[in-house]
């Protein structure tokens, strides 16, 4: 019967439980949908096969590549960390809009900061699932292990996924504000940063006037640091530090934009209207 016991709310770990609930909701979704799981691993795997073959060709035809065979493959894997981080976060939020579920979520006790944590956690899980196949394939097919980057890999990974989240939050804010017509931004906006991130070439290749643009991207410092490690065998603490400091600003702007658009949606009455 209804009303045979008052609702008991667990007081202390409420936030963890609500974040866990959101993660659970998207785990149910992934478990139930094999196309979604396939989508997570498909592109990283295809990219790894193509770039692995390109690397094999270049290694036999270029002295420079012969000395630094892993640069392209590491670039592919690490760029995908940033892309998967961003798309994982944006799509999870857009999924709630497709499902017309935002109205229910925002009248539940889920705080905006808890939603933000949940989105990051789900994105991390999706990124790890997506990357596992590509990393394994690089090892099996091309004898390249991304783990050869050592402890620096942790720094590279964290910086790239955080930058992906920053862009992801910005995209979510735009989609909240401009509706699902803007959802394609989730797929292409981050690629505007690719040329300046210097994934496959050194920053010095850029024209002088573009170098300051690249210098404010955490990703450019990560890829410079990656090349320093793979080509020269030296760890660049300077690049790691710059990437980390810049990322604090990037994530603050990304989350700030998302929260500002969320407030704007509450003023404009968009939260209970958005849907497919």
């Amino acid at each position: 019967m209804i009303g045979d016991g008052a609702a008991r709310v667990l007081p202390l770990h409420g936030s963890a439980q609500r974040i866990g609930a959101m993660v659970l909701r998207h785990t149910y979704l992934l478990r139930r949908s094999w196309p979604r799981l396939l989508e997570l691993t498909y592109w990283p795997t295809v990219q790894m096969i193509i770039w692995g073959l390109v690397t094999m060709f270049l290694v036999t035809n270029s002295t420079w590549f012969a000395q630094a065979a892993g640069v392209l493959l590491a670039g592919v894997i690490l760029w995908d960390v940033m892309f998967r981080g961003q798309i994982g976060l944006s799509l999870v939020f857009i999924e709630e809009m497709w499902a017309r579920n935002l109205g229910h979520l925002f009248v539940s006790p889920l705080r905006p900061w808890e939603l933000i944590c949940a989105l990051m956690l789900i994105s991390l899980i999706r990124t790890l699932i997506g990357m596992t196949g590509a990393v394994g394939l690089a090892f099996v097919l091309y004898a390249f292990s991304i783990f050869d980057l050592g402890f620096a890999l942790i720094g590279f990974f964290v910086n790239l996924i955080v930058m992906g989240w920053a862009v992801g939050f910005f995209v979510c804010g735009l989609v909240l504000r401009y509706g699902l017509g803007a959802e394609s931004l989730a797929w292409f906006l981050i690629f505007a940063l690719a040329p300046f991130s210097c994934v496959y070439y050194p920053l010095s290749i850029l024209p002088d006037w573009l170098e300051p643009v690249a210098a404010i991207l955490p990703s450019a410092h990560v890829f410079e640091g990656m090349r320093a490690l793979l080509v020269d065998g030296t760890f660049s603490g300077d690049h790691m530090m710059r990437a980390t400091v810049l990322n604090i600003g990037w994530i603050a702007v990304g989350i700030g934009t998302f929260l500002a658009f969320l407030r704007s949606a509450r003023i404009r009455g968009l939260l209970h209207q958005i849907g497919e």
Partner: protein
Amino acid sequence: MSGPVLEVEDLTKRFGKVTAVDAVSFAVGRGTTAALLGANGAGKTTTLAMVLGLLLPSAGSVRIFGRDLAANRYALLPRMNFSSPYTDLPHRLTVRENLTVYAKLYGLDGVRRRIERMAETLDLGDFLKRPTGKLSAGQRTRVALAKALLNEPELLLLDEPSASLDPDTADWVRGVIERYRSETGASILLASHNMAEVERLCDDVFVMAGGRIVESGPPETMIERHDRNTLEEVFLEIVRGTSSLSEAAQ
């Protein structure tokens, strides 16, 4: 706590030059059911959205359990819940999965037991394992109601609870709402344009037209005051009268 559970004072919402809700004030007492009644576009859903905090008002205030909603929203939300045909639960998740997620979002303990109880009360047993998107409109309404009652809210907000339901299912839903109130002493605010529903369920009615409350009181008092037989006749008189006045003013 004595006094009203919900107090709305001079609540106003403007979208640009359009005033959707214009200085609306009303109160809902403990253990009572009240309705916002009005034609399409009267401002009922907008008012409900402001009471839920989904929409920020341009002016005015909402007090729930004696506390200002704007300042205490996250302390108040666990004691409230709502259901609306304009929002949905994720279609690909099963009914049980959806209810589990929301039970956890509301920080409830004994989730499995609670869902079993809901399934029994709302007769969900047959489709607990089915994806929510594959249910009929009536079944989905029952699931939405189960989600709205999961945390046993002291204040329940319902937007058109029987919209698009066949008469039999609509009657069944009204029965559940009545039973919930009598068993828990909860307060209910519903937005509707179904007169029979309002007459059956509500202690107080606030008739809205053009974003304003143009008439209020218990249904039977309103029927008596207007010397009519049903609330529908009262409503038509009020709304048509209001429309004529607006047209004359233009």
